[in-house]
């Protein structure tokens, strides 16, 4: 581990057109299993990228690595031009220490499949936790910001409820508000509708659609809902076997897939309904 060499990677990205997120030759392995293989992916500021693909194709791993929930084996991830997974030390890139990671990942918000709201806090307290405890905001300011965001996701009237009293769709909307309360530059949505009952999926997708339309956030989303992906994405990436097999605008990718595996996957999804 000590003699890892990252000298082929720049200390930071420069130029006019810096992507908000860049995966630069990123690999992730669990033992002999390669989950992500030499991934290169740029996400522009304000872009909404959807990642689709069969299970085990590494799509969730992409988000988890960006959230630094997973370490990477090779490559460097940059956020807003700065290395996320690495830091500069004596003019060289080395693996980031925990403090640096904590500082950097505050720019990234994540929503999970199972919401993961803090059960001992009300909806409002869930949203205030990050701003108060991490950003050091005054309680009144954090409360105002959180109330505004709960309003945005349509949960203002439930602000004093604990998660146990909320439906799945409501919990997920609070979770989105909680992540937004940190004012992240990048938002990650990891299968946020997969654990929901069909009738409440719409309330969550509406919130995300709203964010895409009205806010200039950079977003990466993993989903199994092809219709939704087609509607709101700027670009869709089809993952297969730890690689991007095909990527394109949603119109092109869904109506005119080029690769055989993409065609197979899309038709299998269509058949499943």
């Amino acid at each position, binding site marked *: 581990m000590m003699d890892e060499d990252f000298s082929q990677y720049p200390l930071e990205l420069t130029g006019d057109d810096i992507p908000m997120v860049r995966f630069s030759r990123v690999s992730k392995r669990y033992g002999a299993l390669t989950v992500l293989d030499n991934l290169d992916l740029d996400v522009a500021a304000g872009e909404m990228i959807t990642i689709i693909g069969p299970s085990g194709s590494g799509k969730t791993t992409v988000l988890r690595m960006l*959230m630094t*929930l997973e370490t990477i084996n090779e490559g460097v991830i940059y956020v807003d031009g700065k290395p996320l997974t690495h830091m500069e030390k004596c003019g060289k890139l080395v693996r980031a220490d*925990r403090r640096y990671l*904590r*500082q950097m*990942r*505050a720019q*990234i*918000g*994540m929503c*999970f499949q*199972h919401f*993961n*709201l*803090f*059960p*001992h806090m*009300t909806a409002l307290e869930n949203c205030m*936790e*990050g701003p108060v*405890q*991490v950003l050091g905001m005054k309680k009144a300011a954090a409360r105002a910001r959180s109330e505004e965001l709960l309003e945005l996701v349509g949960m203002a009237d439930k602000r004093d*409820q*604990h*998660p*146990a*009293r909320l439906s799945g769709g409501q919990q997920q909307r609070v*979770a989105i508000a*909680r*992540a937004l309360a*940190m004012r992240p530059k990048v938002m990650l949505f990891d299968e946020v509708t997969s654990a929901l009952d069909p009738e409440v999926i719409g309330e969550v997708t509406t919130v995300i659609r709203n964010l895409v339309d009205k806010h200039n956030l950079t977003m990466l989303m993993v989903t199994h809902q092809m219709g939704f992906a087609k509607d709101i994405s700027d670009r869709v990436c089809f993952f297969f076997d730890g690689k991007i097999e095909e990527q394109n605008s949603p119109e092109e990718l869904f109506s005119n897939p080029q690769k055989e595996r993409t065609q197979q996957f899309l038709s299998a999804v269509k058949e499943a309904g």
Partner: protein
Amino acid sequence: MSYIDFLKEYGHRFLDGTLVTAEQFFLATLLAICIALLAGLMKLSRNRLIRGVAVVYIEFFRGTSLLVQLYWIFFVLPLFGLTFEKFTAGFVAVGMNLGAYGAELVRGGIQSVPKGQWEAAYALSLSPFKRMWRIILPQAFVNMLPPWGNLLIELLKNTALVALISVSDLMFEAKQINGSTFLSAQTFGTALIIYYVLARFVVTPFMRWLERVMRRKLGRA
């Protein structure tokens, strides 16, 4: 002598002893909670040395007899220049012993908090300390309450051993009364009832109440 007369004669001594038992119980419980929290967290540390210290502590205090530990603290440690008053030696021994059991409850409670909670706290960039203190421990605490109820009843009963180093607790008073009256059935019967009442009508309801309060805080009630 009727039992009523017996109680009239010796009731105040049972009461004095019960108060000392309650004090021993309270102080030993405080100590046990602190030790359990510390050792339980240490046992989950990444650092092998820290983990090792916790394992040795827990193994020692769970693996040997409380009575022997009590004698060690009261009779042996003074030989090394560490002298405790008998009252202190009593609750320290009981607290350290039960704290070792409690450490396992703390460790289990923390590990029972779903992984998603750690990840959500991590994703919010909470510092490791705040993550533990504000997110994980409150939830672990709720999960731990039922087994802690058992442990505290065990602790209460174990305080009877401090009579053996002449702390004037309930058991000590009972032995004294028995020694002068030879009314063994009345004496030890009364002690038995008092221990039972303390466990059944003080400790257990308190823990139930705490469980209810905590469940309400989680919005589960």
